[in-house]
């Protein structure tokens, strides 16, 4: 038996949606390990977000540094805290959602614990056995890990967000211990501000590709996205060409999304892109060339130039909304 220590990201006093997928995984793992889920919140504002976490996990540990040394996330300072608390709390599973932070942090935690790690998993098969996509999602590998502690990053799109438990868990504050950044320093973040939902949380995603030709042309896709409350995405070709911000990229090396509805507009459908979106429930492809590979994964394909298709789509959806 052992506990599951779930590192959870939060902002403004609430766990992030991505952390709810981690807790969903943690509950499954805890059953196999006959232990408890312990949510771990590290950094500035951890205590404030503890109350929300306590609705979702029976035990919550928060860690803040008095001098603000943990204010900005750094793998160098966070990993020793996670590893130490894993040992102190009898954890046999340590997990975090495979976000930019989770992917940066957890292998370092695994190294500190001499633990085997399964990245980006889609499914729990047994206490030490997990299913994970390989080859850009073209195959699924079932792996078994033999170390006493296993480290796992679940893929957000594969786990339904954990629901609240109905009671309140216990919240305890743990000391930060010695914080040593090993010479690393957070300098700044150039944030992309947007009122749209996060790409990985959105129910609808509108993505554009190389065929959009310019960033200016993406405006019409943004109009469609805003009409649907959708997040904006893009293919690597479009982000590489500088048409849209890099963090819009959907694909093997970008974001993995699985919305209810995915629009791929003027996207050819390279393996790299398909790896990031083929888990979507309904895929619509709009492209002027009917031979593009995107049509092989699309549920609905329209062979048409985007210049004609998108304005018409916006007007038809407006009509549909007005009729309800």
């Amino acid at each position, binding site marked *: 038996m052992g506990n599951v220590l779930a590192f959870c990201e939060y902002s403004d006093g609430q766990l992030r949606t991505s952390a709810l997928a981690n807790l969903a995984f943690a509950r499954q793992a805890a059953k196999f390990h006959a232990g408890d889920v312990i949510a771990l919140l590290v950094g500035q504002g951890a205590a404030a977000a503890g109350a929300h976490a306590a609705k979702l996990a029976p035990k919550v540990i928060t860690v803040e540094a008095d001098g603000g040394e943990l204010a900005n996330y750094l793998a160098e300072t966070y990993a020793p805290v996670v590893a130490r608390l894993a040992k102190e709390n009898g954890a046999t599973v340590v997990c975090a959602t495979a976000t930019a932070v989770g*992917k*940066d942090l957890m292998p370092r935690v695994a190294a500190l614990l001499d633990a085997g790690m*399964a990245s980006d998993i889609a499914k729990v098969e047994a206490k030490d056995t997990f299913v994970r996509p390989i080859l850009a999602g073209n195959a*699924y*590998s079932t792996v078994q890990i033999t170390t006493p502690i296993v480290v796992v990053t679940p893929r957000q799109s594969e786990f339904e967000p954990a629901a609240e438990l109905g009671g309140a868990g216990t919240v305890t504050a743990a000391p930060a211990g010695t914080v040593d950044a090993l*010479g690393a320093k957070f300098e700044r973040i150039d944030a992309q501000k947007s009122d749209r939902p996060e790409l990985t949380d959105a129910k609808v995603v509108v993505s554009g590709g190389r065929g959009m030709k310019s960033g200016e042309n993406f405006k019409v896709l943004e109009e469609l996205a805003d009409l649907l409350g959708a997040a904006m995405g893009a293919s690597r070709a479009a982000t590489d060409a500088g048409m849209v911000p890099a963090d819009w990229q959907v694909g093997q090396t970008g974001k993995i999304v699985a919305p209810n509805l995915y629009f791929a507009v003027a996207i050819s459908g390279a393996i790299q892109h398909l790896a990031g979106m083929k888990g979507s429930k309904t895929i619509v492809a709009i492209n002027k060339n009917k031979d593009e590979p995107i049509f092989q994964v699309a549920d609905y394909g329209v062979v048409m130039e985007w210049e004609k298709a998108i304005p018409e789509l916006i007007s038809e959806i407006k009509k549909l909304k007005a009729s309800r």
Partner: protein
Amino acid sequence: MKILVPIKRVPDPTQKAKIKDGHIDLTGASWIVNTFDEYAIETALRLDENGAENARIPGTEIIVLSIGPDDAAKEIRTCLAMGADRAIHVVAKDDEIDSLTVVKVLQAVVAAEKPDLVIMGKQAVDGDANQVGQMLAGKLGWAQATFAASLELAADKKSVVVGREVDGGVEYKRVPVPSVITVDLRIVGAKAVKNGVTPETHSYPGEGARLPSLKGIMAAKKKPMAVAKLADYGAAAAPVITEKSVTLPPPRAAGQFVADIPTLVKKLADEAKVL
């Protein structure tokens, strides 16, 4: 700078995945240098050269290391042909090693070679694990900068500012020398790497890593490649992760072409019920 670049050979990702006896069938597969590792070699070269004069900075060295079967020598030579100076080939079968084994070897190589930086791809495009760089940094007690989209070497060469693509923007993180850096695809952008020697006005082609030149290919044949075993670095063929089986995802149900936008909207509303 003295830079260690660990690389992995991977099956060419454009090949269709086939299953044999419950695992990926690699019979007759063609192999390439993992794309992100190729970018790591490119990054190391850009740090160690004057790009405008196409000349290496004196006193710099790039060592490429790979752990893999005998055949992997071919991919290692490709990296030497791109411009790396020498290589270490640790011979091991793919099923004898996992991330922690690789890290153990790398740790020993770092201790022996004392590089200023370890630069590698953020992940291998076959296993997609994205672990080794972070694990190595953790084991060494070094700082790490993962998913690097840009690098700028400080004037005193004692630190590097790394632009990292994170959720919601680009984070700039300073790491000291030595550190472990893992690179993302935008690191090969026209002006993504700044070493203080290549003039700011210089632009690289920005379309991936450089191809080996004919001269480079000839030179690579004479460059030293040390051959070693796992045991030489205190590592053993004892992976803690084993692959039980591999399956291919079920194909998506066949889609349909629709003739016009009104039909599409009707189907999305009534059939798929997503509008």
